[in-house]
């Protein structure tokens, strides 16, 4: 018993350190969350921490901020736009990358190695390098301000990493697997869709999560290629515009920020296990 007690006491500093770090790390988000439910005048007059003076007085909270942000401020439309951008901008690059990575791993063709090295080399290109020439072409082709334009741009920026990751994964699958499949008369497409893809579900899942979050949270690409077109603006663009236009209307800004964070948070809690496996691999994205 006394042994247990000394052990507990000696771990006390560690416990305190961990708990205080966690508190510091979560305070900013807690402040945002609480403020997003407080009426305008309250947010403006007192700090959000004052709600703890009457913790069970629920009349100090309301949903009106969210209603206004989603309807009058257009966050509802922006949420749909974010979905419209992010889902195809996740599926398209992964589909293109998966076919290419499969060819790089399991098909013979001239220039295979050189091409793959070039693709990996493109990881170093920061997307800032591409903005001006692409925007000019987009303006000529009428692609700026369109969903198609943003899907393809995110596809281009996400591809080198996706191909690199999937090529490494497909290449690690056992060779006999494909040989016996071909002996049984499977076509290359069947071998790809029925063998390679199902075996790569964890890799594909973490790739998809990262690409989705990356697109969902992106501001720069949307800013450049969608510009001022309000009807197609995703939430990041909308939110950054609201910071300029609403300035001190914290009750609305906090609610809007929380709406934009809801999807990533849901994904994080639902699919946590795919994060850790993918996160190190994700560190080489350009």
């Amino acid at each position: 018993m006394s042994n247990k007690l000394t052990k507990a006491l000696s771990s006390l500093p560690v416990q305190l350190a961990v708990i205080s770090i966690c508190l510091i790390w979560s305070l900013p988000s807690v402040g945002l969350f609480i403020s997003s439910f407080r009426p305008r005048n309250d947010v403006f007059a007192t700090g959000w921490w004052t709600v703890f003076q009457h913790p069970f007085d629920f009349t100090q909270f309301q949903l009106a901020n969210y209603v206004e942000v989603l309807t009058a401020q257009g966050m509802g439309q922006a949420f749909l736009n974010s979905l419209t951008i992010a889902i195809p901008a996740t599926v398209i690059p992964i589909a293109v990358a998966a076919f290419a990575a499969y060819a790089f791993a399991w098909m013979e063709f001239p220039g295979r190695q050189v091409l793959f090295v070039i693709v990996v080399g493109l990881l170093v290109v920061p997307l800032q390098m591409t903005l001006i020439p692409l925007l000019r072409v987009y303006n000529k082709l009428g692609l700026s301000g369109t969903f198609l334009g943003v899907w393809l741009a995110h596809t281009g920026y996400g591809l080198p990493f996706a191909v690199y990751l999937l090529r490494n994964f497909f290449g690690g699958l056992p060779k006999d697997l494909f040989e016996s499949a071909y002996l049984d008369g499977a076509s290359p497409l069947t071998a790809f869709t029925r063998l390679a893809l199902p075996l790569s579900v964890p890799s594909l899942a973490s790739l998809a999560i990262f690409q989705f979050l990356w697109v969902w949270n992106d501001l720069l690409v949307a800013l450049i290629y969608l510009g001022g077109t309000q009807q197609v603006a995703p939430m990041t663009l909308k939110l950054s515009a609201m910071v300029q236009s609403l300035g001190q209307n914290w009750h609305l800004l906090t609610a809007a920020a929380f709406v934009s964070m809801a999807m990533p948070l849901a994904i994080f809690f639902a699919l946590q296990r795919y994060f850790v496996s993918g996160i190190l691999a994700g560190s080489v994205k350009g």
Partner: protein
Amino acid sequence: MEGFANQVLNTLLAIVVGVGGVVGLFLGMEFLIGFLPDRIQVKIRPWAYVGPLILILSFYLVYPTLNTIRLSFFDARSQNFVGLQNYVWTLTTKTMHVAFRNNLLWLVLLTTFSVGLGLVIAVLVNRVRYESVAKSIIFLPMVISFVGASVIWRFIYAFKPANVPQIGLLNGILTTVGQDPIGWLVDKATNNFSLIAVGIWLQTGFCMIVLSAALKGIPKEIIEAAQVDGASEWHVFRKIMIPMISSTIAVVGTTVVINVLKVFDIVFVLTGGNRDTEVMANRMYKEMFSFLNFGRASAIAVVLLMAIIPVMAVNIRRFQEQEATR
């Protein structure tokens, strides 16, 4: 309400068109290849699989990169060749010097703090029973957007005159202990550090998760043997843990460095680069959209590329080594 239903319908339609388009493309090509003789099929199919990749990368990365390098030698409207003039401007103007200084400040502080804190937290959480909860809390900022994080922190830094109640957390604390409130994002003495703190809050979780996984990979016997030999905790940390995960620390560090070099959103949303908080990526955006000087914007982009290439090369090589040993 009807308008909303229409919007949802449009969203669904756009998603179906986008997703269906790419799947249809590959199935269509496969269908057409099926009509060819077997011998030719084998030769054509790989190109059908890598073809879309090559087209997209050529259009979205290769062509624009080469073109940006070319434009960096031309004037604002890309009409006359001006030699190295844009680079001379980039390397000698005061605004750019401020941007370089700030990028360096970001680089040193953010990398040191997020990797250092990440390491310390990884070691600490390893010893508590609620490890996974603690990790989730610290990792959480990673998944939200830089724009969302900027709003969160803009609220933390909110500033009001000294005689009225503060609504920003930091100034609330300051005034409670009897100090004057500070304009964190406005005051030139604090604004850069305030921005970097946001970055640390966002990046530390990433460092912690990766380093924690590496720490767990150290065989228990090694640490126990050292403890039996009477090594202190600090000694174990300094002489065993750190050397054994040094390559992971390098990967994490280089990743943070690359993120820092490209930092844009936080500065764009919180200060717009005003009052001496400029960074390269934000300046490039300004030259491009506010001043329409495509020559200068291109030159800044090229400088950015030059800074990233060596770091990225190291990172890819390290990653390759790690994949090879798995």
